[in-house]
């Protein structure tokens, strides 16, 4: 067991190295949320006048939305990395060493989680610089980060599974561009639920992206609704475990196809 843990750390380290060796990736991952924060923040500034946002400052409302959307959009590309490792022969090389198969999978999940957490913290800090107010304090922010990490795990694992199954960049690109905006806009990322059409609200109820938003925003509120945090957070956790299980299964089927 401890060997698996150590090996998981080696694999995590290896994945994270890409970021500090190629800071351009990190920058790109951060510039996009900054643009969204600025664009949406300016565009929808007056929308809080309609009420239902629980705050008078749209930026307060927007920060969790950008955190969750960024977690979704960056994790969706995890499969591209896996695909590259398969094509380069790296995965097969590791499979012929005594490394535990679990550690190979866990390395992806853990490095993905660390990446999402760092990205979320930076966005929260940028929001603060822009004048956002977080009444829920550090606990609320921490839970927002946890929710976005869980969401990132769900979509990262699914993307990995997809990469191993289809072995085609085009499929990942196609599915991601198809899913990102509908998943984001069919949630309360940018708009208060009270202002959404009824049918959209119903869809949002079963959208994991919305679960992360509800859990995060509830935890960040002045007077948190812990029931909402627990129910949505719990659902995300279950989904994340299921997605990781699925991608482990896909990994086994990959090994059979070698």
């Amino acid at each position, binding site marked *: 067991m401890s060997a698996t843990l*150590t*090996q998981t750390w*080696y694999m995590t380290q*290896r994945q994270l*190295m*890409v970021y500090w*060796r*190629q800071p351009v990736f990190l920058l790109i991952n951060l510039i996009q949320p900054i643009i969204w924060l600025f664009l949406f923040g300016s565009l929808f500034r007056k929308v809080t006048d309609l009420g239902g946002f629980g705050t008078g400052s749209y930026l307060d409302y927007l920060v969790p939305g950008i955190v969750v959307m960024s977690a979704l959009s960056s994790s969706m590309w995890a499969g591209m990395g896996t695909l590259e*490792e*398969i*094509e*380069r*022969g*790296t*995965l*097969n*090389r*590791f*499979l*012929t*060493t*005594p*490394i535990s198969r679990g550690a190979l999978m866990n390395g992806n999940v853990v490095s993905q989680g660390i990446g999402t957490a760092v990205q979320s913290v930076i966005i929260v800090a940028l929001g603060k610089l822009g004048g956002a107010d977080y009444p829920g304090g550090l606990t609320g922010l921490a839970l927002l980060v946890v929710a976005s990490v869980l969401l990132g795990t769900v979509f990262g694992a699914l993307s990995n599974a997809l990469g191993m199954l289809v*072995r085609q960049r085009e499929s990942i690109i196609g599915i991601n561009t198809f899913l990102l905006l509908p998943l984001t806009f069919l949630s309360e990322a940018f708009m208060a639920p009270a202002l959404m059409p009824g049918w959209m609200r119903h869809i949002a109820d079963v959208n994991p992206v919305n679960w992360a938003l509800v859990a995060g925003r509830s935890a960040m509120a002045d007077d948190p609704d812990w029931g909402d945090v627990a129910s949505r957070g719990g659902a995300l956790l279950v989904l994340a475990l299921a997605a990781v299980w699925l991608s482990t299964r896909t990994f086994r089927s*990959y*090994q*059979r*196809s*070698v």
Partner: protein
Amino acid sequence: MAPTTGGRPPHHLRDRALAVETHQLVKTYPGGVRALDGMELAVESGTVFGLLGPNGAGKSTTVKILTTLARPDAGTAAVAGHDVLRHPGRVRAAIGVVAQKSGADPVATGRENLLLQGRLYGLKGAACARRADELLERFDLADAGNRPVKGYSGGMSRRLDVALGLVHRPEVLFLDEPTTGLDPEARAAMWEEIARLAGEEGLTILLTTHYLEEADRLAERIAIVDRGQVVVEGTPDELKGELRGDAVHLELREAAADGAEPLLRDALTALPGVHEVAVDGRRVSARADDGAAAVPALLAALERAGAAVATATVARPSLDDVYLRYAGRSFTEADAAVGTPVPAGAAGGAR
């Protein structure tokens, strides 16, 4: 010793330690591609064994099964004494693998790649670092060791690949097409490196190649593989010796006088092990069971007949001839025939 085909392992191997042993391996890929069709191999410990065949013959599939990447549909395989299906973990600890694409991390330095590889085999701290430095030195990568691998030349990354396979001092090293894609200079350097490795105590090397010259040069024994089976196995010389013999070409100082040609021919044909003698002016050619051994006798016989010899050359039959004979088609023909589609699920390129 005669080369052997199919069936049980060659008799001379039965009592010795085998580093690799397979019986009746069968592997069919989705879509009905029968990559292996009763593969029989026996590789003696401490030797260099070459699997030679065109693309698609089943070499890479065999290596994938022996390195625990793929599972056979039927048959058994053992590496370093461990069954690949029952004890894959023990096999992995005992082998080093240099695949066609061994996938060093391009962002990491050569040294970091080696350190990680060492850690995966349980090497720790200073011992791991020492081993990495030792290998960088040995593979002429000491200067490049702290540079990211993406800046390496083809030859350098191939040398790093081999170093990665050796980190944990394996008992059996698999080299899958080690020089494919290298320029002639890098190829020659890699051959030297492999020849040097072969001298190491106890290391068994299983080499796959579709270069006849490579197998001839590096391998002590060769199995020629075609359509998922071993069609013939033996030392390069045994395989070539199975052909009608060497070609011996002699050039006389002066053309044989009119009427002397039949006399010369008869004199040479009378020598043991020499046949198909032809005399044409200054040129004399013959087939000999053992060309090198026949030359002195040929020279002496010509001398006695009063014909002085200017030059003598012996041409060994090539493995290409051997391949043609056992696989029933020429090597280049077989290689070209595998332009046929490979199933989409086939990772790692050629098999």
